Protein backbone atom coordinates (compact mmCIF):
# COMPACT_ATOMS: atom_id res chain seq x y z
CA UNK A 1 0.00 0.00 0.00
CA UNK A 2 1.32 3.46 -0.91
CA UNK A 3 2.21 5.96 1.82
CA UNK A 4 -0.79 8.20 2.49
CA UNK A 5 -0.56 11.76 1.12
CA UNK A 6 -2.18 13.37 4.11
CA UNK A 7 -1.51 15.28 7.29
CA UNK A 8 -3.83 15.59 10.27
CA UNK A 9 -3.03 18.17 12.92
CA UNK A 10 -4.85 18.10 16.20
CA UNK A 11 -5.87 21.22 18.12
CA UNK A 12 -7.60 21.22 21.48
CA UNK A 13 -10.23 23.91 21.82
CA UNK A 14 -11.34 24.22 25.42
CA UNK A 15 -11.49 21.28 27.78
CA UNK A 16 -13.85 18.98 25.92
CA UNK A 17 -13.41 19.66 22.19
CA UNK A 18 -10.68 18.83 19.70
CA UNK A 19 -10.35 19.84 16.06
CA UNK A 20 -8.53 17.70 13.49
CA UNK A 21 -7.28 19.70 10.48
CA UNK A 22 -7.21 17.31 7.53
CA UNK A 23 -5.05 18.21 4.54
CA UNK A 24 -4.53 15.98 1.53
CA UNK A 25 -6.07 12.71 0.37
CA UNK A 26 -8.50 10.68 2.42
CA UNK A 27 -8.27 7.04 1.37
CA UNK A 28 -8.17 3.71 3.16
CA UNK A 29 -4.37 4.05 3.23
CA UNK A 30 -4.55 6.92 5.69
CA UNK A 31 -6.36 4.95 8.39
CA UNK A 32 -3.28 4.76 10.68
CA UNK A 33 -2.84 8.55 10.41
CA UNK A 34 -6.49 9.22 11.20
CA UNK A 35 -6.57 6.79 14.09
CA UNK A 36 -3.38 8.33 15.51
CA UNK A 37 -4.95 11.76 15.24
CA UNK A 38 -8.01 10.35 16.98
CA UNK A 39 -5.82 8.97 19.76
CA UNK A 40 -4.17 12.38 20.11
CA UNK A 41 -7.52 14.18 20.13
CA UNK A 42 -9.84 11.70 21.71
CA UNK A 43 -8.87 11.39 25.33
CA UNK A 44 -11.52 10.54 27.87
CA UNK A 45 -12.16 14.22 28.49
CA UNK A 46 -13.04 14.92 24.84
CA UNK A 47 -16.76 14.86 24.18
CA UNK A 48 -16.76 16.55 20.79
CA UNK A 49 -14.45 15.87 17.87
CA UNK A 50 -14.57 18.28 14.93
CA UNK A 51 -13.10 17.29 11.56
CA UNK A 52 -11.92 20.21 9.42
CA UNK A 53 -12.07 19.16 5.76
CA UNK A 54 -11.01 22.57 4.43
CA UNK A 55 -7.79 21.07 3.07
CA UNK A 56 -9.35 17.94 1.57
CA UNK A 57 -7.97 17.38 -1.92
CA UNK A 58 -9.22 13.91 -2.78
CA UNK A 59 -11.37 11.20 -1.27
CA UNK A 60 -12.34 7.76 -2.54
CA UNK A 61 -14.82 5.23 -1.22
CA UNK A 62 -12.14 3.68 0.99
CA UNK A 63 -11.87 7.05 2.72
CA UNK A 64 -15.61 7.09 3.45
CA UNK A 65 -15.34 3.58 4.90
CA UNK A 66 -12.54 4.76 7.15
CA UNK A 67 -14.70 7.61 8.45
CA UNK A 68 -17.38 5.04 9.37
CA UNK A 69 -14.78 3.14 11.39
CA UNK A 70 -13.84 6.39 13.13
CA UNK A 71 -17.51 7.02 13.85
CA UNK A 72 -17.84 3.63 15.53
CA UNK A 73 -14.89 4.38 17.78
CA UNK A 74 -16.26 7.80 18.68
CA UNK A 75 -19.70 6.36 19.45
CA UNK A 76 -18.09 3.78 21.70
CA UNK A 77 -16.57 6.63 23.72
CA UNK A 78 -19.86 8.58 23.61
CA UNK A 79 -18.17 11.34 21.63
CA UNK A 80 -19.94 13.50 19.05
CA UNK A 81 -18.44 13.82 15.58
CA UNK A 82 -18.88 17.00 13.56
CA UNK A 83 -17.42 18.25 10.28
CA UNK A 84 -16.93 21.55 8.50
CA UNK A 85 -14.95 22.94 5.57
CA UNK A 86 -16.51 20.50 3.09
CA UNK A 87 -16.82 21.75 -0.47
CA UNK A 88 -20.17 21.27 -2.19
CA UNK A 89 -18.80 18.15 -3.91
CA UNK A 90 -17.76 16.44 -0.68
CA UNK A 91 -20.89 17.58 1.12
CA UNK A 92 -22.92 15.78 -1.55
CA UNK A 93 -20.84 12.64 -1.03
CA UNK A 94 -21.61 12.75 2.70
CA UNK A 95 -25.29 13.07 1.80
CA UNK A 96 -25.18 10.36 -0.87
CA UNK A 97 -23.58 7.87 1.53
CA UNK A 98 -25.87 9.13 4.33
CA UNK A 99 -22.86 9.72 6.52
CA UNK A 100 -24.31 13.17 7.23
CA UNK A 101 -26.95 11.46 9.38
CA UNK A 102 -24.26 10.52 11.88
CA UNK A 103 -21.63 13.24 11.38
CA UNK A 104 -23.27 16.66 11.52
CA UNK A 105 -21.98 19.05 8.88
CA UNK A 106 -21.46 22.72 9.65
CA UNK A 107 -20.50 25.71 7.55
CA UNK A 108 -17.77 27.05 9.80
CA UNK A 109 -15.54 26.09 12.67
CA UNK A 110 -17.40 28.42 14.98
CA UNK A 111 -20.76 26.76 14.33
CA UNK A 112 -19.17 23.28 14.51
CA UNK A 113 -17.64 24.08 17.90
CA UNK A 114 -20.90 25.32 19.30
CA UNK A 115 -23.18 22.81 17.60
CA UNK A 116 -25.24 25.40 15.77
CA UNK A 117 -26.73 23.76 12.69
CA UNK A 118 -26.55 25.80 9.50
Amino acid at each position, binding site marked *: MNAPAITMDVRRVGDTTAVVDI*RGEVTAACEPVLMSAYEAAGGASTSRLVLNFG*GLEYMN*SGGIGMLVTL*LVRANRQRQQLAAYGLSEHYREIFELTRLDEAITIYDSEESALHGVVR
Partner: protein
Amino acid sequence: MTETAGPEKVATADEIGLSAREAAAPPHDAAQAAPYDATQAAPRDAASWARKVDRLEVGHRAGVRGTNVAGRRLTGPVQGFGKMWQKTYRMDAGPQITPEEAIATWREHFPEFWPKGNRFAGALTGINPGDVALLDLSIGGGVKLSTGVFVLYADAESFTLMTPQGHMFAGWITFSAEREGDMTTVQAQVLMRANDPLYEIAMTLGGHRKEDKFWAATLTALGRRLGLPDPRVETRSTCVDSKRQWRHSRNVWHNSMVRSVLQMISAPVTGFGRLVRGVKSRA
Protein backbone atom coordinates in the same frame (compact mmCIF):
# COMPACT_ATOMS: atom_id res chain seq x y z
CA MET B 1 -13.81 -15.85 11.82
CA THR B 2 -12.39 -13.44 14.35
CA GLU B 3 -14.45 -11.10 16.45
CA THR B 4 -12.52 -8.20 17.86
CA ALA B 5 -13.40 -5.08 19.73
CA GLY B 6 -12.35 -2.94 16.79
CA PRO B 7 -9.27 -1.26 15.39
CA GLU B 8 -7.55 -0.52 18.68
CA LYS B 9 -3.92 -0.98 17.67
CA VAL B 10 -2.66 2.16 15.99
CA ALA B 11 0.62 4.01 15.69
CA THR B 12 1.23 6.70 18.25
CA ALA B 13 1.01 10.37 17.41
CA ASP B 14 4.74 10.72 17.92
CA GLU B 15 5.45 8.03 15.36
CA ILE B 16 3.79 10.04 12.63
CA GLY B 17 4.78 13.47 13.82
CA LEU B 18 1.42 14.63 15.16
CA SER B 19 1.07 16.85 18.17
CA ALA B 20 -1.89 17.98 20.23
CA ARG B 21 -1.68 21.73 20.44
CA GLU B 22 -2.31 23.80 23.52
CA ALA B 23 -5.82 24.44 24.69
CA ALA B 24 -5.25 28.14 24.23
CA ALA B 25 -4.77 27.80 20.49
CA PRO B 26 -7.17 30.22 18.79
CA PRO B 27 -9.84 28.78 16.49
CA HIS B 28 -9.20 29.33 12.82
CA ASP B 29 -11.56 29.05 9.89
CA ALA B 30 -11.54 26.67 6.94
CA ALA B 31 -9.85 29.10 4.59
CA GLN B 32 -7.00 29.53 7.01
CA ALA B 33 -6.56 25.77 7.36
CA ALA B 34 -6.56 25.16 3.64
CA PRO B 35 -3.55 26.05 1.50
CA TYR B 36 -5.96 26.62 -1.38
CA ASP B 37 -9.65 27.24 -1.83
CA ALA B 38 -11.04 23.73 -1.95
CA THR B 39 -14.53 24.96 -2.85
CA GLN B 40 -13.34 26.41 -6.17
CA ALA B 41 -11.08 23.71 -7.63
CA ALA B 42 -12.74 20.74 -9.38
CA PRO B 43 -11.62 17.74 -7.35
CA ARG B 44 -9.96 15.02 -9.39
CA ASP B 45 -12.26 12.40 -7.87
CA ALA B 46 -15.36 14.24 -9.17
CA ALA B 47 -15.92 11.92 -12.13
CA SER B 48 -15.48 8.81 -9.98
CA TRP B 49 -18.40 9.48 -7.63
CA ALA B 50 -22.06 8.99 -8.46
CA ARG B 51 -24.22 12.06 -8.35
CA LYS B 52 -26.43 12.44 -5.34
CA VAL B 53 -29.72 10.54 -5.47
CA ASP B 54 -32.50 10.48 -2.91
CA ARG B 55 -34.32 7.42 -4.23
CA LEU B 56 -33.29 4.87 -6.82
CA GLU B 57 -34.77 4.89 -10.30
CA VAL B 58 -34.38 1.93 -12.60
CA GLY B 59 -36.02 0.58 -15.74
CA HIS B 60 -36.79 -2.98 -16.80
CA ARG B 61 -33.85 -5.34 -17.28
CA ALA B 62 -34.12 -8.65 -19.08
CA GLY B 63 -33.62 -11.84 -17.09
CA VAL B 64 -34.40 -10.50 -13.60
CA ARG B 65 -37.62 -9.76 -11.73
CA GLY B 66 -36.48 -6.23 -10.91
CA THR B 67 -38.63 -5.74 -7.83
CA ASN B 68 -37.78 -4.06 -4.49
CA VAL B 69 -35.41 -1.45 -5.95
CA ALA B 70 -37.26 1.46 -7.59
CA GLY B 71 -38.08 4.17 -5.07
CA ARG B 72 -35.80 2.74 -2.37
CA ARG B 73 -33.20 4.83 -0.53
CA LEU B 74 -29.57 3.82 -0.25
CA THR B 75 -28.41 2.39 3.08
CA GLY B 76 -24.89 2.60 4.47
CA PRO B 77 -23.52 0.96 7.62
CA VAL B 78 -24.92 3.91 9.62
CA GLN B 79 -28.48 2.95 8.68
CA GLY B 80 -28.18 -0.82 9.26
CA PHE B 81 -29.38 -2.88 12.22
CA GLY B 82 -26.93 -5.68 13.01
CA LYS B 83 -23.35 -5.91 14.15
CA MET B 84 -20.93 -4.11 11.84
CA TRP B 85 -18.55 -6.37 9.97
CA GLN B 86 -15.59 -5.71 7.74
CA LYS B 87 -14.90 -8.69 5.52
CA THR B 88 -11.95 -8.86 3.19
CA TYR B 89 -11.52 -11.39 0.39
CA ARG B 90 -8.04 -11.14 -1.09
CA MET B 91 -6.21 -12.90 -3.92
CA ASP B 92 -2.73 -12.65 -5.41
CA ALA B 93 -3.06 -11.97 -9.13
CA GLY B 94 0.62 -12.47 -9.93
CA PRO B 95 3.23 -10.18 -11.48
CA GLN B 96 1.87 -10.04 -15.04
CA ILE B 97 -1.45 -8.30 -14.42
CA THR B 98 -1.49 -4.59 -13.51
CA PRO B 99 -4.10 -3.29 -11.04
CA GLU B 100 -5.71 -1.30 -13.84
CA GLU B 101 -6.04 -4.40 -16.04
CA ALA B 102 -7.54 -6.41 -13.19
CA ILE B 103 -10.13 -3.75 -12.37
CA ALA B 104 -10.96 -3.10 -16.03
CA THR B 105 -11.67 -6.82 -16.50
CA TRP B 106 -13.70 -6.96 -13.31
CA ARG B 107 -15.79 -3.89 -14.22
CA GLU B 108 -16.42 -5.04 -17.77
CA HIS B 109 -17.37 -8.65 -16.98
CA PHE B 110 -18.66 -8.30 -13.43
CA PRO B 111 -21.83 -10.47 -13.82
CA GLU B 112 -19.88 -13.31 -15.42
CA PHE B 113 -17.91 -13.95 -12.24
CA TRP B 114 -20.95 -14.48 -10.04
CA PRO B 115 -21.66 -18.00 -8.79
CA LYS B 116 -24.24 -20.02 -10.71
CA GLY B 117 -27.88 -19.36 -9.81
CA ASN B 118 -27.39 -15.64 -9.15
CA ARG B 119 -28.11 -12.88 -11.66
CA PHE B 120 -26.63 -9.38 -11.87
CA ALA B 121 -28.36 -7.23 -14.47
CA GLY B 122 -26.37 -4.03 -14.80
CA ALA B 123 -25.96 -1.45 -17.51
CA LEU B 124 -24.65 -2.74 -20.83
CA THR B 125 -21.62 -0.48 -20.56
CA GLY B 126 -20.27 -2.21 -17.45
CA ILE B 127 -19.89 -0.66 -14.01
CA ASN B 128 -20.08 3.14 -13.95
CA PRO B 129 -20.85 5.65 -11.19
CA GLY B 130 -24.57 6.17 -10.71
CA ASP B 131 -25.63 2.89 -12.38
CA VAL B 132 -28.28 0.77 -10.69
CA ALA B 133 -28.04 -3.00 -11.13
CA LEU B 134 -30.86 -5.44 -10.44
CA LEU B 135 -30.09 -8.69 -8.66
CA ASP B 136 -31.79 -12.05 -8.36
CA LEU B 137 -30.02 -13.98 -5.64
CA SER B 138 -30.52 -17.65 -4.90
CA ILE B 139 -31.52 -18.10 -1.26
CA GLY B 140 -32.50 -21.76 -1.39
CA GLY B 141 -35.80 -23.59 -1.73
CA GLY B 142 -36.19 -22.30 -5.26
CA VAL B 143 -36.69 -18.75 -3.97
CA LYS B 144 -34.91 -15.83 -5.60
CA LEU B 145 -34.29 -12.72 -3.55
CA SER B 146 -34.93 -9.75 -5.78
CA THR B 147 -32.97 -6.61 -4.90
CA GLY B 148 -30.33 -4.31 -6.38
CA VAL B 149 -27.15 -2.31 -5.90
CA PHE B 150 -26.00 1.21 -6.77
CA VAL B 151 -22.56 2.00 -8.20
CA LEU B 152 -21.32 4.56 -5.70
CA TYR B 153 -17.77 5.02 -6.94
CA ALA B 154 -15.58 3.76 -9.77
CA ASP B 155 -12.06 4.61 -10.92
CA ALA B 156 -9.22 2.75 -12.62
CA GLU B 157 -8.17 0.86 -9.50
CA SER B 158 -11.39 0.36 -7.56
CA PHE B 159 -15.16 0.47 -7.61
CA THR B 160 -17.79 0.42 -4.88
CA LEU B 161 -21.37 -0.82 -4.76
CA MET B 162 -23.87 0.44 -2.17
CA THR B 163 -27.05 -1.32 -1.14
CA PRO B 164 -30.67 -0.08 -1.06
CA GLN B 165 -33.33 -0.53 1.64
CA GLY B 166 -34.43 -4.15 1.81
CA HIS B 167 -31.09 -5.63 0.77
CA MET B 168 -29.62 -8.26 3.14
CA PHE B 169 -27.05 -5.80 4.35
CA ALA B 170 -26.73 -2.07 4.69
CA GLY B 171 -23.32 -0.98 3.53
CA TRP B 172 -20.97 -1.09 0.64
CA ILE B 173 -18.53 -3.41 -1.00
CA THR B 174 -15.33 -2.12 -2.56
CA PHE B 175 -13.48 -4.05 -5.25
CA SER B 176 -9.89 -2.91 -5.64
CA ALA B 177 -6.48 -3.90 -6.92
CA GLU B 178 -3.05 -2.68 -5.95
CA ARG B 179 0.61 -3.38 -6.55
CA GLU B 180 2.58 -4.78 -3.63
CA GLY B 181 6.23 -5.12 -4.65
CA ASP B 182 6.15 -6.87 -8.01
CA MET B 183 2.82 -8.58 -7.33
CA THR B 184 -0.72 -7.38 -7.94
CA THR B 185 -3.35 -8.26 -5.38
CA VAL B 186 -7.09 -7.91 -5.87
CA GLN B 187 -9.65 -7.78 -3.13
CA ALA B 188 -13.32 -7.35 -2.32
CA GLN B 189 -13.99 -5.66 0.99
CA VAL B 190 -17.44 -5.48 2.55
CA LEU B 191 -18.35 -2.99 5.28
CA MET B 192 -21.82 -3.89 6.41
CA ARG B 193 -24.52 -4.41 9.00
CA ALA B 194 -27.44 -6.78 8.47
CA ASN B 195 -30.27 -4.48 7.42
CA ASP B 196 -32.88 -5.68 9.92
CA PRO B 197 -33.45 -8.25 12.70
CA LEU B 198 -34.58 -10.99 10.30
CA TYR B 199 -31.44 -10.65 8.21
CA GLU B 200 -29.32 -10.53 11.36
CA ILE B 201 -30.72 -13.91 12.39
CA ALA B 202 -30.22 -15.25 8.87
CA MET B 203 -26.62 -14.00 8.78
CA THR B 204 -25.91 -15.68 12.11
CA LEU B 205 -27.50 -18.95 10.96
CA GLY B 206 -25.20 -19.49 8.01
CA GLY B 207 -25.60 -16.25 6.07
CA HIS B 208 -22.04 -15.12 6.80
CA ARG B 209 -20.67 -18.46 5.67
CA LYS B 210 -22.74 -18.31 2.49
CA GLU B 211 -21.55 -14.79 1.76
CA ASP B 212 -17.91 -15.81 2.31
CA LYS B 213 -18.36 -18.65 -0.18
CA PHE B 214 -20.06 -16.30 -2.65
CA TRP B 215 -17.22 -13.79 -2.78
CA ALA B 216 -14.48 -16.43 -2.67
CA ALA B 217 -16.12 -18.07 -5.70
CA THR B 218 -16.36 -14.70 -7.44
CA LEU B 219 -12.68 -13.92 -6.91
CA THR B 220 -11.72 -17.41 -8.01
CA ALA B 221 -13.67 -16.92 -11.25
CA LEU B 222 -11.96 -13.56 -11.77
CA GLY B 223 -8.57 -15.16 -11.13
CA ARG B 224 -9.25 -17.80 -13.78
CA ARG B 225 -10.24 -15.06 -16.26
CA LEU B 226 -6.99 -13.26 -15.47
CA GLY B 227 -5.12 -16.46 -16.35
CA LEU B 228 -4.17 -17.66 -12.87
CA PRO B 229 -3.69 -21.43 -12.82
CA ASP B 230 -4.67 -21.89 -9.17
CA PRO B 231 -6.42 -18.82 -7.68
CA ARG B 232 -6.38 -18.80 -3.88
CA VAL B 233 -8.61 -16.48 -1.88
CA GLU B 234 -7.82 -15.42 1.67
CA THR B 235 -10.82 -14.42 3.80
CA ARG B 236 -10.67 -12.21 6.87
CA SER B 237 -13.66 -11.06 8.93
CA THR B 238 -13.58 -8.50 11.72
CA CYS B 239 -16.48 -7.37 13.87
CA VAL B 240 -16.00 -3.58 13.88
CA ASP B 241 -18.99 -2.89 16.14
CA SER B 242 -20.68 -5.59 18.18
CA LYS B 243 -23.63 -3.37 19.06
CA ARG B 244 -26.92 -3.73 17.26
CA GLN B 245 -28.79 -0.55 16.30
CA TRP B 246 -32.28 -1.28 17.58
CA ARG B 247 -33.54 2.08 16.40
CA HIS B 248 -33.24 0.66 12.88
CA SER B 249 -35.19 -2.53 13.58
CA ARG B 250 -38.10 -1.16 11.58
CA ASN B 251 -36.00 -1.59 8.44
CA VAL B 252 -37.72 -4.99 8.37
CA TRP B 253 -40.64 -3.31 6.61
CA HIS B 254 -38.54 -3.15 3.43
CA ASN B 255 -37.11 -6.69 3.77
CA SER B 256 -36.65 -7.90 0.19
CA MET B 257 -36.44 -11.55 1.24
CA VAL B 258 -39.93 -11.46 2.77
CA ARG B 259 -41.24 -9.40 -0.11
CA SER B 260 -39.67 -11.70 -2.71
CA VAL B 261 -41.36 -14.72 -1.12
CA LEU B 262 -44.71 -12.91 -0.99
CA GLN B 263 -44.28 -11.74 -4.59
CA MET B 264 -43.53 -15.31 -5.67
CA ILE B 265 -46.58 -16.71 -3.85
CA SER B 266 -48.90 -14.03 -5.14
CA ALA B 267 -47.57 -14.09 -8.71
CA PRO B 268 -50.24 -16.54 -10.05
CA VAL B 269 -53.05 -14.47 -8.47
CA THR B 270 -51.77 -11.13 -9.74
CA GLY B 271 -51.08 -12.67 -13.16
CA PHE B 272 -54.66 -14.00 -13.31
CA GLY B 273 -55.96 -10.58 -12.24
CA ARG B 274 -54.05 -8.89 -15.04
CA LEU B 275 -55.42 -11.43 -17.52
CA VAL B 276 -59.02 -10.83 -16.38
CA ARG B 277 -58.59 -7.05 -16.54
CA GLY B 278 -57.13 -7.39 -20.04
CA VAL B 279 -60.08 -9.53 -21.25
CA LYS B 280 -62.61 -7.07 -19.75
CA SER B 281 -60.95 -4.04 -21.33
CA ARG B 282 -60.89 -5.74 -24.75
CA ALA B 283 -64.59 -6.63 -24.37
